[in-house]
């Protein structure tokens, strides 16, 4: 019995209703295509006739852990079952493999194509399904009603038109990537989390500021600016974030829309199989986090290089201590508790060299299996406990990169139980000394939430769960 079949709580009912609304909307668009349902290749006139004044796209905004992937899978399967070939677009090979796996599990008789680059090595979770074929040419997958690939792979195709595209993590995709693949589909479902990191570039891109087709925007921003009538749906319930995290994350990063938690405050608990030592500094923060869902482990104020050795040691020591103490998580999935193993813990950083430093520190402690990565790479992933090296920790200045709301949002919204933030003291003062000074440009929609404000909101909350090292 799954949540979607028999709603048990008001949160489930609300979430199910939102998903049903999106699917009904898609079905409405799909059935208007007329008999046959096959892709037309008769040019723009035929397409315009089919569109019949209806929208060519639907956007679904999803806060962290709101069942975005489940929606992508259901929408894809529904469309494919209705006889509409679907191209599924994700942003990384890992995401594509995950989706392929989930699609194959959801629709065991559906033929699925996994389109890949030449150097791709199929992962076990793709190979275990007999219904999944892997190929490098779209022509080899012509018999598959569903083809899954990364956006970069779809961009290599020069022809072929699919009646539907389902685009996952659409806010991570850049507008110029959408430009390359938009010729391959007639209609599209865009699903993504608007609170996450914006696409970025290493080159100066001011010359396009204010243009509706600025290639540096996210795909969804470009779509909505050029097609203002496109409906935007929103998933209302986060199944990942615990009740302790939803008010903080919602207020800081989704100030106008908000969302609610799918679980009640007592449904998620974190306990330890062993007792701590009063003198052991790593015990207090993890116990604070277990009790309240949050902890700020504050190191003495100091300006440091990016790979702050003390902060790196602290991050690794916290992960090690959680494992040593035998943390047990109680949730709606495991009411009688399950051990928090290394693969359920993640350490998130702002920069790659910081992640590398934490990884090598974990190696010295002989702790294996803990995920350590940057915010960009943790997007879309879920863990029981996360340890975050605060992007502003030890910094002399607060640059736009380090203030970006999406970065902090990703780092503080990956956990099901608790989040421990490691930081040097003095971040609120640093924020006060560096108010946002980004210029305001004409024709550029104001971006909410403001990174400076979001950082202040998160620090204000964390200060209530502060543990000094």
């Amino acid at each position: 019995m799954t949540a979607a079949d028999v709603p048990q709580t008001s949160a489930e009912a609300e979430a199910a209703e939102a998903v049903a609304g999106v699917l009904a909307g898609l079905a409405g668009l799909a059935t208007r295509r007329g008999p046959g349902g096959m892709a037309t290749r008769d040019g723009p006139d035929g397409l315009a006739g089919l569109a019949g004044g209806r929208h060519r796209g639907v956007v679904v905004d999803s806060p962290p852990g709101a069942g975005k992937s489940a929606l992508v899978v259901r929408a894809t399967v529904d469309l494919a079952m209705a006889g509409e070939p679907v191209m599924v677009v994700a942003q990384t090979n890992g995401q594509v493999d995950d989706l392929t796996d989930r699609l194959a599990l959801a629709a065991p008789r559906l033929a699925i194509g996994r389109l890949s680059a030449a150097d791709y090595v199929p992962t076990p979770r793709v190979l275990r399904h007999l219904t999944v074929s892997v190929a490098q040419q779209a022509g080899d997958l012509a018999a598959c009603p569903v083809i899954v690939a990364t956006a970069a792979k779809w961009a290599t195709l020069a022809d072929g038109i699919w009646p539907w595209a389902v685009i996952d993590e659409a806010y991570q995709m850049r507008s110029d990537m959408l430009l390359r693949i938009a010729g391959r589909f007639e209609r599209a479902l865009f699903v993504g989390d608007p609170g996450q990191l914006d696409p970025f570039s290493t080159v100066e891109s001011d010359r396009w500021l204010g243009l509706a087709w600025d290639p540096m925007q996210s795909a969804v921003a470009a779509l909505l600016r050029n097609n203002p009538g496109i409906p935007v749906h929103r998933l209302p319930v986060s199944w990942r974030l615990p009740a302790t995290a939803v008010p903080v994350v919602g207020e800081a990063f989704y100030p106008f829309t908000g969302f609610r938690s799918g679980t009640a405050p007592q449904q998620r608990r974190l306990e330890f199989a062993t007792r701590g030592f009063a003198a052991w500094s790593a015990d207090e923060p993890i116990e604070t986090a277990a009790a309240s869902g949050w902890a700020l482990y504050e190191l003495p104020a100091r300006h440091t290089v990016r790979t702050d050795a003390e902060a790196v040691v602290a991050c690794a020591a916290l992960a090690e201590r959680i494992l040593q103490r035998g943390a047990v998580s109680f949730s709606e999935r495991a009411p009688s508790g399950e051990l928090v193993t290394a693969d359920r813990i993640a350490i998130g950083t702002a920069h790659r060299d910081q992640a590398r430093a934490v990884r090598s520190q974990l190696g010295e402690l002989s702790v294996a299996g803990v995920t350590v990565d940057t915010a960009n790479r943790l997007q879309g992933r879920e863990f029981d406990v996360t340890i975050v090296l605060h992007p502003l920790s030890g910094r002399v200045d607060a640059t736009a990169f380090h203030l970006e709301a999406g970065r902090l949002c990703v780092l503080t919204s990956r956990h099901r139980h608790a989040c421990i933030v490691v930081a040097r003291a003095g971040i609120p003062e640093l924020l006060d000394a560096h108010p946002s000074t980004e210029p305001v440009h004409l024709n550029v929609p104001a971006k909410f939430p403001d990174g400076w404000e979001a950082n202040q909101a998160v620090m204000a909350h964390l200060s209530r769960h502060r543990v000094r090292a």
Partner: protein
Amino acid sequence: MSTLTALARARAVASAVAQPISTVRHVHVSDRPLVLIPLALAGEASAPLAAMVGDDPGSARLLVVAQPRNRDQRFAFAAGLATVILGYIDTFRSAVEDASSGADREPRQRFADAPQVLVPNRAGIGFVRLLGRSTRFRRSDGEYAVDPAVPVLGRWLTFLAERAEYPGSCLLLAATEALALHWASGQSPVEDLNLAALLGWVDPPSGMTGPEAAAAAEDPLTCPPAGPATDPTFDNEVLAPLIAACARADGDAAAHRAEASLRAALSGQLTPTWKLMWRAVGLLRGLPPGGRVAPRWDADKDAFTGYVTYLGEGGPPQPRRDSAVAAARRLDWLERAQAGYAIQRALDDPLVMAEYRMTGEAFAGTVTAAEPGRIDGTGRRRKLRPLITVTTEDPVRIEAGTVLSTPGRPGQKALVVSVYAGRPARVVLELSGGMGRALIPVPGSVPEVGDRLCYTALSDSYQRSWPFPAREQTPWTHGGPPPEYVPADEDASEVWS
């Protein structure tokens, strides 16, 4: 700022002189660059006030606008500037060289050299861009006609300014940026924007330390700003009365006298920077060029040749804004160029590579074991696959299975077989390529025990670019196909002009 640059800045403070942060020169310096120092009138967006320009340190040409608010005088100034700049560009349009690449490619020719324009700072590049924008749409007939050279100048200035965004291009350079690429001063990056102060750190006059020279450069009387903005005190006390005198002058002789005083005052503002510019050129020329500077200059020559051809075919001026497809394509070019440029600099320069060694993306060490004659017999054909072991003190964060290369052996790939982490770390590499066709390596093609080498996963090999849709196939998600671009008189108007 990277950790190594921060260290170099700290050392510069300690030793009171700028520290080199590169061992080779990463920019091309022409034998005959054109130095251009523009000045703008305060309070008027991109209103030219004066310019000192020329390709000979001994003869600077001074152009002055007696009344910068007068549009006719502005375009007369542009026509004067066009004479100098277009004349300079024309000198590169005769000698050609063969540029056919590859055995089966079409034979192709390009100009043997290209113009190089040097301005003092990044704001100077911005001024070139704006002056280009305000002149390239002008017409030489009808109402408000301008000299026919003015719109051509506008297109060339726009070409240069757009090319300056392209990482690694040297057609239009800012002197402060070229210097900061090679030396770290003991002042902040914002203070480095001042050419005089930066040069004071890099090359202090005898008897002075870097900080003393930089402090002396802050006096606007001895070191006037390098433009385009002028010194406000000069504006109020010297420039304003002289411009007013020009406007009041009654009769040819009086006008001539007033203008001569204005020229003398502006020459006094520009000449110190003119000398600094040529000193900067001399300092850059003193560095040995990196191995990949010439190929990048070849790309600049190609771009120059391409634009000459485009103009010769009567191509319209660059549009005010990029279309959706043009913007995406340009971003793709820039990102590729940026990535390639960063890697090329590292491959050319051990000091730049040191940044990558710090982060574990490269390592330098000594060959401690070698099996030069090893044959891989597992496949259908026996292949020469020597093994070497490199021992290094660097933090190695490269995983087995990665393909590496070393700057001195471009044709040779090294597959990481295994990594024994620790200090020192040992990395076992399997070599392929660049050893001749036989099963015995050509002498010297396999590193020997005791050789010191740097291996990195960075590679500047060609990356295939996938096509963008054609302009007329701009998809509905990006507003559909844009209307055909037709240059119009309105293009020249600006909200602020």
